[in-house]
């Protein structure tokens, strides 16, 4: 049987990679490989997943050096020479093995005012937002984020500047400033402007390149930069 050589990060002690041999199957995903290791070879291996179909955003790991969603990453795509190296996401503290503490990541969504606040109640009629309007199109481009943290782990600015809000939180803010029903626009712009926010983005585009949902946070961040700088020059920020 064809076997894969898999190196998996274990966090015990100083931490280090441990090698495992895993049977190779067709249509096998990286998550299948990690699950095989946990079920057959290393029962105390810590890792995280839920939906297995690319919806929940919980199974992201560093695979052969790049952050990826493991449930939708086929082994054939990343392990051309039959070798895999699986590590936890970068830029986040490790709880155990492949499991990172994502609370800092989600706290930044809250800091970026990532929650919707509207004026309508259930007794009002629906807000009518033309689907073809430019603002709604901007929302559509960024709304499918599953919060997996791949962009955050791929961002050099997050590594250099730990207080930087990161691509996911800023993308979320961008979808909300373009939501014509939302009432917190000015506060949100203030929350995402400046050096811990959108203006620190170097437009390197790692987030956009690695996003498994093909979202372009770089584009949204550029939009926030323009919007916030305009407000700052007018004295509105």
């Amino acid at each position, binding site marked *: 049987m064809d076997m894969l050589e898999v190196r998996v990060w274990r966090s015990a002690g100083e931490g280090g990679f441990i090698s495992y041999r895993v049977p190779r199957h067709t249509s096998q995903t990286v998550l299948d490989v990690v699950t095989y290791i946990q079920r057959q070879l290393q029962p105390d291996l810590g890792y995280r997943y839920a939906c297995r179909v690319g919806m929940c955003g919980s199974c992201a790991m560093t695979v052969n050096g790049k952050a990826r969603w493991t449930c939708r990453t086929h082994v054939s795509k990343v392990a051309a020479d039959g070798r895999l190296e699986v590590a936890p996401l970068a830029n986040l503290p490790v709880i155990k093995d492949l499991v990172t503490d994502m609370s800092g990541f989600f706290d930044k969504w809250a800091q970026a005012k990532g929650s919707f606040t509207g004026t309508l109640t259930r007794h009002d009629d629906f807000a009518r937002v033309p689907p073809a309007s430019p603002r709604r199109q901007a929302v559509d481009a960024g709304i499918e984020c599953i919060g997996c943290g791949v962009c955050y782990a791929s961002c050099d*600015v997050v590594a*250099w*500047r730990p207080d930087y809000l990161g691509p996911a939180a800023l993308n979320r803010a961008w979808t909300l400033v373009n939501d014509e029903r939302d009432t917190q626009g000015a506060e949100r712009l*203030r929350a995402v*402007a*400046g*050096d811990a*926010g959108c*203006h*620190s983005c170097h437009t390197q585009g790692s987030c956009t390149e690695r996003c498994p949902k093909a979202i372009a946070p770089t584009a949204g961040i550029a939009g926030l*930069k323009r919007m*916030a*700088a305009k*407000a*700052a*020059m007018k*004295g509105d*920020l």
Partner: protein
Amino acid sequence: MAAMNVRTQARLWYFQRVSAMVLALFVAVHIGIVVYAVRGGLSGAEILARTHGSIAFAFFYGVFVLACAVHVPIGLLRIAQEWLRWRGPSAVAAALAFAVLLAVMGLRAVYGVVA
């Protein structure tokens, strides 16, 4: 940058972007002038003969120097913060001092070849 508020940070980003646009144009014109001027060699006396009393030269390079004095220190502050972890009022003061140094030295040089 704790000493600097968000509005100032956003404005600095804007100033750097606008100065970058100015520099993109001015660097291209500058290189064009250099290539044009040095055909067949160039001496100090020839340069001074062209620049002496030239209002256009003084204006062009005066604006050029000011754009550099805005653009470069903001970028250096970024590098200090992100690569050297040098932040706070001391880094801002150093960047500001560098801006003044660039402006003074640059404008002095422009004055030197025009006056």
